[in-house]
Structure formats: structure tokens, C-alpha cells
């Protein structure tokens, strides 16, 4: 009952204030009458009685105000009043208000958009049950890098660990799949038995793998993704008739995974990993590994557990070499997925945070300027008894109005911004699909807007109400003396703004210089006018299948060469700059009578360190070097002499020649690299070719051994066609030729320029964003400098008029105003240089070819800043010189 009373009276106070007011008024008046009556009864005259009653009451309005103050709903009503009043204030200066709202919208929207990316990628939990219990398990190499697992090492981790309730290995790649509707190249993962248990995922139809499905030689079964099932298997609930031909082997579909399960990225099919048996080498690192922690086990304990197993393997292994694991590592899966993107994303968030500060500084200056105009109004309110906290609250309310409206618009903008960001983002950015404007992001935006409002409001309020407001009344609104300190604060804000902007623009400059340096790198090959076609034949390792592959590719290359406009056709196992990369391994310098009979013999030879070398292994055709214009340095390329049965030959990169054979001629030496493709025939080095930046223009080129495609064929290759004519008709002719040769082989087309361009994707992404923030901050700062100077000139009009009247020339006035501006600029630039020197260190990981303190960038940006700021000062200063003393003195 009392609760009901409270709610009712609260609502009545809120929504029918008029009847409440009338009631209160009557009550106080009747009280007055009763008092007077009492006095009359005590013997006073009516007039005397009235006056005594009034004395005792102490003022009708005062009593009423005290009652109102005590009401529970009063604060809310006064908040409404503040909001109404604030909104009226803001409407009074629509131009300024629009600028402030727009500035805040830009800053809050930008920060929200970047935060949504950071949240989606780094913070949002992975979409699995208890995702923080899922770990990525790796080997640690001799050099301290994380590496994938070799089969026997995985088996030991799985069997000996005490920390994981489920642990599984997986690897994924593109294979050709046919049998559903049309032949396709699909991302397929090979996984061990417990893979789904790690993620606590179960098929929505059918069953999970069991131990007997994954044994060597078991019947071939496959799990399909929800998307694949819907699109290619007609979403049929009956899987008994569903079979897929994957790499020429027939698999029965046994289960469909729930929608949304997508691990590894983009995988459509999951097959058992070891149907052909495990690789017994402890140095063939073919599988990634995930595990789910047992309840109560910490990451550190699990790390210790895996680490001790790994060290035991290391200590007891027979083949000690630099590819053997040295240690083991356990990382939360989310960290392992997002590890490399963490620091660039945080740098972006920091950069947009700087932009936010710069924007807030502008708004703060505008608010200060407005507040100084309102000093008289504040003084009157204060004189009428408004307590200071009420005035402070008024400022807070106005700031909150501004930033909530700005923030709201900003979030609307961010919705588009995020779509743009996701479109702009490099493919290598993981988890992009989880980036969106969602509840946590909205909460962030709200929190951000509120923080900005409290900051701005408190700042203006403290600046404005701390002085004795009576001065404002005395000054009579002429606003001369009291504004000096205000102007100083304005200039300090501008200096800070310049400092922050300088840091941001220098950062952008360093990234820009890095991109230029990267583009200057000679990749070692030509990029333009090359169409790439990725083809993968059904893979099989026996010599007969390989011979067929060689014939197929030979035919294919021959036919492609006849396409009109195509000048050169080549083929290689992987394109430079493409994500796939090349396998690398150790080769041996052997001569003809030492050739090992099998891989086990081969392993034993690795004990002779002085005969070892390390290189990437690339299968290529002669035309590949010609199409990409990779130059022959010495010796010869592959040619007609190099048939399948003639001695196998190799061409090596210049870097390998100088690294492995310093001061010698490698041509004529023979090497054993059979561990890469299982063919133990020696390779005779016949030529040396130029270096190629295989792993990105910003990564050093790596020593590479090229073998002849027709001697060492492989199932998946990329054909490269140099063509003078348009790429589209070439691609469609090539597709038709492939269809004719084998309708079951799918192909993927790209131009080499696309590959080149996407290899620069993340560099470009960072540069575009930080550049955009930098330019925006520069514009805002320019506006800030201009605003503060113009305001200062307008406040000093009378003073300038007096000076001119006393004989100051326009040159002196210009010098006075500019001098003030220059001091501000220099303070800002000095602080900015200090900040940049301290902060650019954080972007070192994103730089290439420039140091974090690159003098050229620093000088250029500093000069740019000073020039822009001077220009922003000059215009108001010019205006000051045109002050007419007569007009200025009569001004008020």
C-alpha cells in the first residue's frame, strides 16, 4: 500500500504539476489566513495580524519552493527543465550546434566503428560452447617459433597429456570435389577423431566420426557443413544415398554439422585425417592442433604438461635436427587466431581515440566561447539564488544533449562505416564475419558519449562557474578583462590538439612512406597482364598417376598457348605473394652413388650437418620463368632435354646459391630433396635464377629450389598466362579448354595483379584508416586554430581599436595577433614532436624501410602542420588589421 501511494504521488507530481501547484498555493494561503485569524483572536488589529502572519510564514513563494525541493520527483522535473532550457540554448545558435553535433558524430561514429571491429575480432567470444576452454596446441621450433605438429608428436601429446578432455589435429586445404552437382574446388579439412568433441559440436543429422572411421584403410566417410548440405545436397534428411568424389575417391556422407560451425575458416567438408596412414616423421609438420581443457585445469598447467611431453620427445628423438621440436606451447584458441591482428587493430583503436580527443577539443572550445557569452545569464541565475551545482548540472545537461545526439548520428554513420570497413579489410583478417554493430558495441557507444559529455560538461562548467560570477555583472557584458584566462585555456586546448594531430599525421606519414617503400621493392617478377588459373587434379602419389598428370599438364599448357593473345604459358606449384606459400625443408648434397633407397635411409643421412641445406621447394615449368620474367642469371632453364626419364634437374635462386655455395659455382652439383615429394632421384643444378619475393614484398626472398613440372609433377598447380589481350576472354577460353580435357577438374581464375594487390591489403587498410583519421584530425585542428584566433580577435576588437587609435600600424597589430598564434603553434608542435618520438615506436611492426623516427616524415609533417596552422591564424589576424578604431570604440 505505501509503495502504491509513493508511486501515485510521484507520478502525480510528474504529470499533473499544475493541480499540485494550485493545491500547494491554496494550502499555504489558507495557512496564512489561519495565522492572521489566530492573531486577531489574540487581540491584534486586522492589518497588524496580517503583517505578523506574513512575518511568521516568511514568504509564500519561499515556502512553496522549499516544498518543491523536498519532493521526490523534483530532481526529475528539474532535469526536464534543464533539458528544455539546454535544448533552447542549443537551438539559439543552430550553426555552432550543428558543427558541434557533426564533429561529435564523426568522432563517436568513427570510434564506434573501429571498436566494433576490435570487439568482433579480438573480444567477442568464439561461437562455441565455453570457448575460453579451447586451446591451440603447437610445437616450438629451435628458433622459438610456433609450428604445426608432426604426426608422432601429436600422438604423444594426445596419449600422454593429463590436461585435455579432448584433443584433435586438423589441416585444411583446397581439393576438387565432384559428385554433388558440379565439380568444385572446396576448402576441406582433414581431422582426427575427437575434432568435434573439442568444440562440443554434434551433427544435426547423422553421426560424428568414431575411432573406427579414422583408422588407416577404413571406409571413407565425410561430414558436411550446413551450407554445403543445403546448397548442394538439397538439404535432404536422408544421407544414405549421398556420396562425394573427393580427390578421385568416393566418400559417404555420414553427418551434417549445425549452421554456424565453421572451423577452420571456410571449410565445407571434414574428412578423417589418417586414412592413408600416418606420416612417421617427427619433423614433418603437417597438422594444427586444438584441445579442450579438462575442468579445473588452467592454461598454465596445460602449457607445463604439453611442454614436458615435448621436451621428452626432443631429448629422446633419434633424428636430432633443426626441424625437430624443442618445446610445446598452449594458447587460447581465440588468441591464436587473432594473434597477428591484435597490435594493428589496437593501433587503429588508439588512432581513432586520438581523433576523438581532437574532436572533443574543438567542441570544448566552442562550448567555452558560448559559455563566456552566457556569463551574464549565469550571473543573474546565480544572483537569484541558483546554487552552483545547479549551474554545473545545466552545463552537463547541455553537453549530454550534444553528445547523445552526436553519438546517435555517429552510430547511424557507424552502421555504414562498419560495412565499408569490412569491405575494405584485407582477406587475411580473421573473424570478419563476427564484426557488426551489436549490443555490446551500442553500449560502448553510449558509454563513450556519456564520458565525452561528462568530460566536456564538467570542463566548461568548472571553467565558467569557478570565477566570481558577480564580476560578469560588473563588467556589464563587455567581456574584456575576465576573458583573458579563458582565451589562454582556448589556446592551450588548441596546442594540445595540434600535438595530438601531429602524432597522428606522423603515424600516417610513416605508414604511407612504408607502403611507398614496399611498392619500390623489385618483386623479382612481372605482375601485369598475367592470368592465373589454379587447377587441382585428383591426387595420387604412385608413379603411374604422376606420369598421367605430367601428360595432362603438358597437353593443357600446349592448348593454352594457342589461345589468341596468349604469349607465354607457365605453371608452378604456387604463385608468389599468394597465401598458400611453398613447402620448405632440408636437402642434402649427395653424389650419384650415395642415393638413399628409401626415406628412412634418407633420414639417417641428416646427421651430416655439413652436407645439409634449407630451401623452399617449388615445382615449375620452363614457361613459368618466361611468363613472370624471372631472369636467368647463369646456366640454363628447364628445356626439352629434361624428360621424365632423363636425369632430373633443378634451378636454384640466387640467394640459395650465395648462401649454400658462397664463392663457388653450384652448377653441376647434385642434391637430394626427395623428402618433399617422395622421389629420391638426385637433382642436378643446371641454372641460377633471380630472387623472388614469395612471401610478400616486405618479406625477404627465400632460398628456393625449382624442379621441372614434367619430371616432378604434382596434382595441384597454378598456370600463368602472359597475355596482351583482355583477361576475361583468355579466362573463358582457358576454362573451355580445361572442360574439354577433363570436365571433372575445377579451376579458379585470378589475375596476378589481384594477387599482388591483395598481398598489400592489410598495409593499405591500416594506411587508409590512419590516413583518414590524420586528415580529419588535421582539418579539425585547422578549424580549431581558426576558431580560437577569430574569437580572440573579436573579443579584442575594442582593445585593438584603442591601439590603432593610439597609433599602432596594421603591421604591429598583425604581428601581435600572429605572435600569439605562433606561440600556440610552437608549443603544440613541440609537444607533438615529443609525443611522436614516444609513440611511433608502437607502430614499428607496421613499418617497412623507414625507422619510427624517420627524419623526412617528421620534417615534412611538422612543416605541413605549421603551414596549415599559420594560414589558419593569418586570416583572423588580417581581419584584426582592418579594425576601424571608431567603429570598435562605439561597438557597444
Amino acid at each position, binding site marked *: *500500500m*505505501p*509503495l*502504491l*501511494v*509513493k508511486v501515485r*504521488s*510521484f507520478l502525480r507530481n510528474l504529470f499533473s504539476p499544475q493541480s499540485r501547484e494550485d*493545491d*500547494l498555493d*491554496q*494550502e*499555504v494561503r*489558507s*495557512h496564512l*489566513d*489561519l*495565522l492572521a*485569524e*489566530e492573531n486577531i483572536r489574540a487581540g491584534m488589529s486586522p492589518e497588524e495580524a496580517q503583517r505578523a502572519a506574513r512575518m*511568521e*510564514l*516568511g514568504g509564500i513563494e*519561499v*515556502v512553496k519552493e*522549499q*516544498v518543491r*525541493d*523536498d*519532493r*521526490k520527483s523534483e530532481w526529475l522535473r528539474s532535469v526536464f527543465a534543464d533539458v528544455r532550457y539546454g535544448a533552447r540554448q542549443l537551438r539559439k545558435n543552430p550553426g555552432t550546434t550543428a558543427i558541434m553535433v557533426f564533429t561529435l558524430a564523426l568522432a563517436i561514429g568513427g570510434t564506434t566503428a573501429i571498436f566494433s571491429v576490435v570487439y568482433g575480432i579480438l573480444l567477442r567470444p568464439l561461437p562455441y560452447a565455453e570457448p575460453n576452454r579451447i586451446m591451440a596446441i603447437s610445437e616450438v621450433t629451435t628458433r622459438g617459433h610456433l609450428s604445426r605438429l608432426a604426426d608422432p608428436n601429436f600422438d604423444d601429446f594426445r596419449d600422454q597429456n593429463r590436461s585435455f578432455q579432448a584433443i584433435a589435429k586438423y589441416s585444411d586445404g583446397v581439393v576438387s570435389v565432384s559428385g554433388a552437382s558440379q565439380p568444385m574446388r572446396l576448402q576441406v579439412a582433414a581431422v582426427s577423431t575427437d575434432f568435434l568433441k573439442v568444440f562440443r559440436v554434434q551433427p544435426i543429422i547423422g553421426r560424428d566420426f568414431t575411432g573406427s572411421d579414422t583408422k588407416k584403410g577404413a571406409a571413407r566417410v565425410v561430414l558436411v557443413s550446413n551450407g554445403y548440405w543445403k546448397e548442394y545436397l538439397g538439404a535432404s534428411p536422408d544421407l544414405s544415398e549421398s556420396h562425394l568424389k573427393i580427390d578421385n575417391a568416393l566418400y559417404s556422407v555420414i553427418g551434417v554439422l549445425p549452421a554456424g560451425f565453421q572451423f577452420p575458416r571456410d571449410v565445407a567438408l571434414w574428412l578423417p585425417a589418417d586414412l592413408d596412414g600416418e606420416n612417421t616423421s617427427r619433423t614433418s609438420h603437417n597438422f594444427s592442433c586444438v584441445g579442450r581443457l579438462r575442468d579445473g585445469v588452467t592454461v598454465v598447467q596445460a602449457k607445463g604438461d604439453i611442454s614436458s611431453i615435448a621436451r621428452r620427445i626432443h631429448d629422446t628423438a633419434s633424428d636430432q635436427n633443426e626441424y625437430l621440436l624443442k618445446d610445446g606451447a598452449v594458447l587460447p584458441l581465440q588468441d591464436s587466431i587473432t594473434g597477428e591482428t591484435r597490435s594493428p587493430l589496437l593501433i587503429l583503436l588508439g588512432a581513432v581515440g586520438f581523433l576523438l580527443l581532437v574532436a572533443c577539443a574543438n567542441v570544448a572550445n566552442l562550448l567555452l566561447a558560448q559559455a563566456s557569452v552566457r556569463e551574464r545569464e549565469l550571473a543573474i541565475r546565480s544572483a537569484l539564488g541558483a546554487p552552483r551545482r545547479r549551474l554545473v548540472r545545466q552545463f552537463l545537461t547541455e553537453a549530454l544533449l550534444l553528445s547523445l545526439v552526436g553519438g546517435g548520428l555517429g552510430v547511424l554513420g557507424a552502421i555504414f562505416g562498419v560495412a565499408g570497413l569490412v569491405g575494405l579489410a584485407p582477406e587475411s583478417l580473421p573473424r570478419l564475419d563476427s564484426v557488426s554493430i551489436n549490443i555490446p558495441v551500442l553500449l560502448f557507444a553510449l558509454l563513450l558519449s556519456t564520458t565525452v559529455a561528462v568530460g566536456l560538461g564538467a570542463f566548461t562548467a568548472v571553467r565558467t562557474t569557478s570565477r566570481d560570477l558577480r564580476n560578469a555583472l560588473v563588467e556589464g557584458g563587455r567581456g574584456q578583462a575576465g576573458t583573458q584566462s579563458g582565451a589562454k585555456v582556448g589556446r592551450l586546448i588548441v596546442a594540445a590538439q595540434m600535438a595530438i594531430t601531429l602524432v597522428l599525421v606522423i603515424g600516417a606519414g610513416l605508414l604511407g612512406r612504408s607502403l611507398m617503400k614496399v611498392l619500390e621493392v623489385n618483386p623479382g617478377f612481372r605482375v601485369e597482364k598475367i592470368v592465373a588459373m589454379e587447377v587441382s587434379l585428383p591426387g595420387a602419389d604412385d608413379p603411374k598417376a604422376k606420369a598421367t598428370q605430367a601428360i595432362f599438364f603438358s597437353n593443357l599448357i600446349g592448348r593454352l598457348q594457342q589461345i589468341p593473345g596468349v604469349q607465354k604459358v607457365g605453371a608452378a606449384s604456387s604463385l608468389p605473394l599468394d597465401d598458400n606459400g611453398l613447402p620448405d625443408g632440408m636437402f642434402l648434397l649427395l653424389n650419384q652413388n650415395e642415393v638413399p633407397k628409401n626415406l628412412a635411409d634418407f633420414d639417417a643421412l641428416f646427421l651430416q650437418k655439413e652436407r645439409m641445406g634449407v630451401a623452399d621447394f617449388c615445382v615449375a615449368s620452363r614457361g613459368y620463368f618466361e611468363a613472370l620474367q624471372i631472369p636467368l642469371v647463369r646456366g640454363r632453364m628447364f628445356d626439352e632435354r629434361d624428360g621424365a626419364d632423363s636425369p632430373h634437374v633443378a634451378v636454384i635462386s640466387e640467394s640459395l646459391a650465395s648462401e649454400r655455395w658462397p664463392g663457388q659455382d653450384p652448377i653441376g652439383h647434385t642434391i637430394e630433396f626427395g623428402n618433399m615429394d617422395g622421389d629420391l632421384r638426385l637433382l642436378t643444378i643446371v641454372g641460377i635464377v633471380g630472387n623472388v619475393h614469395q612471401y610478400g614484398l616486405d618479406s625477404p626472398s627465400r632460398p628456393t629450389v625449382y624442379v621441372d613440372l614434367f619430371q616432378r609433377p604434382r596434382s595441384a598447380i597454378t598456370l600463368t598466362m602472359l597475355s596482351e589481350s583482355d583477361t576475361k576472354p583468355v579466362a573463358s577460353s582457358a576454362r573451355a579448354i580445361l572442360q574439354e580435357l577433363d570436365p571433372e577438374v575445377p579451376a579458379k581464375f585470378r589475375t596476378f595483379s589481384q594477387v599482388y594487390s591483395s598481398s598489400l591489403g592489410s598495409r593499405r587498410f591500416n594506411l587508409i584508416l590512419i590516413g583518414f583519421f590524420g586528415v580529419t584530425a588535421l582539418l579539425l585542428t585547422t578549424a580549431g586554430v581558426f576558431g580560437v584566433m577569430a574569437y580572440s580577435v573579436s573579443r579584442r576588437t575594442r582593445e585593438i581599436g584603442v591601439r590603432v587609435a593610439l597609433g599602432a600600424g596594421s603591421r604591429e597589430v598583425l604581428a601581435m595577433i600572429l605572435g600569439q598564434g605562433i606561440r600556440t603553434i610552437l608549443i603544440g608542435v613541440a609537444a607533438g614532436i615529443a609525443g611522436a618520438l614516444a609513440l611511433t615506436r608502437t607502430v614499428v611492426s607496421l613499418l617497412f624501410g623507414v625507422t619510427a623516427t624517420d627524419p623526412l616524415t617528421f620534417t615534412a609533417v611538422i612543416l605541413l602542420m605549421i603551414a596549415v596552422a599559420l594560414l589558419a591564424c593569418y586570416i583572423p589576424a588580417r581581419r584584426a588589421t582592418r579594425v576601424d578604431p571608431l567603429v570598435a570604440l562605439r561597438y557597444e
Partner: protein
Amino acid sequence: MDSAPTSLLQGTLDLLILKSLMTGERHGLGISRRILQITRQTFHVKPGSLFPALHRMEEEGWISSFWGDSENNRRAKYYRLTNAGRKQLKLETKRWDRISWAIAQALEAS
């Protein structure tokens, strides 16, 4: 004496108002005079303290109000205790007893 002690001891005024309404409904002036009477002229509650307290206590639901006629047929706003108010009076009385006992103990201690 004025109502200064009420600001010193929060809740004292509430207690006095509730107590003054124990014996029946009263208008504002009546409450003020009744308090003066039962405190032997110690507390003279002025309208500036009285009305805010009355409105607040009404919001709390301890008292309710209605318009009625005074002894001399003037319209006046009357207050009376609600059940919640009676409970609150008991509570406040107990609390006050404890405080005054404690203060007395403190003063007697040497």
C-alpha cells in the same frame, strides 16, 4: 526557540508530526501549535520546515490529506495518520528511546 534542532537530529520533526496527529486530524497550523504544546513551548516549527516535511511524509504514505473546514469555517488542508504512519510512529518512538537512553548513558559516564 525555532526548529533548529530538527536539522540537528534528522527524523525528530517527523516523529513530532506523527505524534501530534495521534490524537486526530489537524491542519498545518494545528500541527505546529500542537507540537508547541506537547513540547512545552520548546519546538516552534515554522512553515518553511513544516510544509516540506508534510509533503514528504505524504509521499512516503505515512499521512494522508484532505480539504476540510476549520473551527471558524475556513477551508484548510487537513492531515491524518495512515496505518503505515502508525507503524512508522512506533518505529520512530523505539528508535528515539534508544537514542535518548544512549545519550543519557553517555552524559552520566564520568
